[in-house]
């Protein structure tokens, strides 16, 4: 079988560089002094207790919020390149059919009707959504909606995909399906940056780990090293299950 390769990008938007990034609301510093480089081709899992700032970090990278200090810069110097997509922690599917949900961002991106129809059809097939194509997206199960959210992001042909807790509210079999898809995306050459609070999931998926604690990035490196020999007491507590908040 011929593998459907992602169209080779004209120019890589990666690496993504965060330099001394801070994010404050009022006087509260929610993220502080974050230096992070996202390299092409890796699966990076951002870990940390609840409220550590994982979602904020991904939204900053994706360009949904702007840092209040420091800089977020892409290789192309584009402030917000198109070749990146995100699945939000609580993705919103539009009150339309599954097909229309997939078509929507492609229409925004300016693809012509015929090209869109072909891309949507391919995406439906790729994600096992053909039987659901005409169903109202809001009536899908949680697992199906999450699959649609992933499909919608994938259809944009991103070089990097940000996934915020992609399987947080799902049962084990749906979680398994999502993890399989993430593995396939990665094999297709899409860079993955995801958050997870699930240690087992992180072990299964991560090549690199970034560990956030109270808005600071206190560990960053290969996953094996993080799990076998965490450098900070916070990470040790977290891995031992003692640090949840």
């Amino acid at each position, binding site marked *: 079988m011929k593998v459907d390769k992602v169209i080779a990008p004209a120019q890589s938007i990666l690496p993504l560089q965060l330099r001394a990034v801070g994010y404050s609301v009022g006087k509260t510093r929610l993220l502080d002094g974050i230096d992070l480089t996202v390299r092409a081709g890796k699966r990076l899992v951002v870990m940390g207790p609840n409220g550590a700032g994982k979602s904020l970090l991904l*939204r900053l990278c*994706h360009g*949904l919020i702007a840092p209040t200090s420091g800089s977020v810069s892409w290789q192309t110097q584009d402030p917000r390149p*198109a070749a990146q*997509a*995100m699945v*939000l922690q609580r*993705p*919103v599917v*539009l*009150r*339309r059919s599954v097909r229309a949900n997939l078509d*929507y*961002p492609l229409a*925004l*991106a300016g693809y012509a009707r015929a090209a869109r129809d072909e891309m949507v059809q391919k995406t439906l097939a790729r994600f096992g959504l053909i039987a659901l194509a005409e169903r*109202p*997206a*809001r*009536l899908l199960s949680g697992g199906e909606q999450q699959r649609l959210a992933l499909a*919608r992001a994938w259809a944009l042909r991103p070089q990097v995909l940000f996934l915020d807790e992609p399987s947080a509210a799902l049962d084990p079999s749906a979680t398994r399906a999502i993890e399989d898809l993430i593995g396939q995306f990665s094999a297709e050459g899409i860079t993955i940056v995801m958050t997870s609070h699930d240690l087992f999931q992180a072990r299964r998926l991560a090549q690199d780990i970034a560990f956030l604690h109270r808005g600071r990035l206190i560990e960053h490196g290969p996953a094996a090293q993080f799990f076998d020999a965490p450098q900070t007491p916070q990470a040790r507590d977290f891995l031992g299950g003692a640090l949840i908040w």
Partner: protein
Amino acid sequence: MDGPFLIALGLIASGDPALTDIIALSLKVTLTAVSIGCLIGLPLGAGLALAQFPCRGAIVVAFNALMGLPPVVAGLLVYLMLSRSGPLGDLALLFTPTAMVIAQAILILPIVISLTRSVVEDLWAEYREQLRSLGAGRLRAVPTLLWDGRVSLVTGILAGFGRASAEVGAVLIVGGNIAGHTRTMTTAITLETSRGSLGLAVALGIILLLITLSLNAAAWGLAQSARGRLG
């Protein structure tokens, strides 16, 4: 002599031309007014929901208050505008169906604007980050939000249609209740009742009730089926 109910049923059953003409004009006026109200009110309401500018709050409150504008006051305002000595007197629109359309559109517009603003505002809170992530800015979000709020919007617009078609004060003042020209169901009922000719009044009353009933049935059915179909 037959009672007014029998006469009314007779008129309805025979499709009396005086009756059908009045119904047709009423529906035409209200439908046109609702269409104009939607054409202006939907984008304006959505814009009000998404825009950020000073005194936005005051404008929101003003449109909410205007929903309760007494129809006679709206009629009076349009009368002053269109009367011979008014600023638009040269158009000679007073006592025409157009004048009635204008008056009703003024009554419906605040309803559509306020309804749209509240529906779109709620959706925007939910959709904002997602739409931005998918590449839609504020302006491009407007049609998206209107479409995704379509069920609530249509339900509200049907209610606005009901209010306009049941209204008598404004159309009486600016239309003048001229037979065969500006006589609507509500103005005819007023006149025929005061003349003691109750048959036609009751016939029109029945039709008006049926219209209100079917509008409400349509709104209810739409909401029900949308819940099943759209989630």
